[in-house]
């Protein structure tokens, strides 16, 4: 297994893109950090030959769900405005591609993010989202069609 630092260097940007695509701009950094902290924790037990990027994207998928749930729990009881300035400004906050991605239905958004940004195969996407490989392929294709229409 390569040193963990090398894994962060090689795959950190990809995982950040995936997190930004499936979450809002502010939640993405929390999901990224949770992903790599969890990955570090189990890194010494990882079987030799594991596809690191696919593994990290899979962890990021779970952490994105956790972060989204935590945000929703926080948001429900309080009528206060969202906390601004908690993070530095996210360069993707007003990026048209991210905006279009985030506007997709969840399954399509996740499928496009994991396949096109995270490099997972359609089969791997189906494994983490549930459903068939064909359904994952269709979600990707539908998502890309919508993106293309939105961004034209």
């Amino acid at each position: 297994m390569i040193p963990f630092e090398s894994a962060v260097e090689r795959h950190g940007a990809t995982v950040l893109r995936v997190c930004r695509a499936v979450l809002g701009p502010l939640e993405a950094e929390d999901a990224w950090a949770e992903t790599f902290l969890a990955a570090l924790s189990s890194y010494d037990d990882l079987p030799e030959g594991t596809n690191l990027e696919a593994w990290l994207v899979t962890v990021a998928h779970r952490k994105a769900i956790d972060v989204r749930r935590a945000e929703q729990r926080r948001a429900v009881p309080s009528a206060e405005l969202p906390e601004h300035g908690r993070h530095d400004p996210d360069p993707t906050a007003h990026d048209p591609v991210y905006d279009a991605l985030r506007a997709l239905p969840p399954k399509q958004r996740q499928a496009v993010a994991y396949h096109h940004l995270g490099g997972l195969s359609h089969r791997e996407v189906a494994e983490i989202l549930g459903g068939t490989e064909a359904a994952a392929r269709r979600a990707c294709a539908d998502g890309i069609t919508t993106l293309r229409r939105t961004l034209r």
Partner: protein
Amino acid sequence: MSTTDDLLSTIGRDDDPATMARLHARLEESRDVDVAYRVVDSPLGDLLVATTERGVVRVGFESVGHDAVLDELGRDLSPRVLRAPRRLDDAARQLAEYFGGERERFDLRLDTRLAHGFRLEVVEHLREIGYGETASYAQVAELAGRPRAIRAVGTACARNPLPVVLPCHRVVRSDGTPGQYAGGPAAKRYLLDLESAGA
């Protein structure tokens, strides 16, 4: 899929160094880091300094290749290796003082796990050679209790996991010439001159 790549191409430009540095900092506090390291500059070039929770475990010269050192740490200690500079603030400060001629001995907790058997014996005894002094390979063999193992002392010094901190540079040939050094003969000469100027 080049059209899809075009579509998503702008997305690759957002991983600016400041963002990645901020995110990386969130990992550096983790208790799961088994080996923390940083790179410090020195008159001998960049030095990679690594620590475990027991103490400083490795000093690596640039000439050896820092990637090779990280791979070695990952293989021999734990793959949970992370650049976490603040955990090595003390070591970095003491090294800077040493290279500035303001420090004669290091006051650091050390983890000598990377040396084994006779090599460990040898590196442990290196501390007995004081600042500005030298000893021959034969004398160190004697100190380590195997007076005839002169060649093995040479190997042990060459593979010292903690050069500079455990002063293998003070071990020289019996004719007084510096001999080999992991950081190169010029680095050894530099350290001997630095110490003889101060001592």
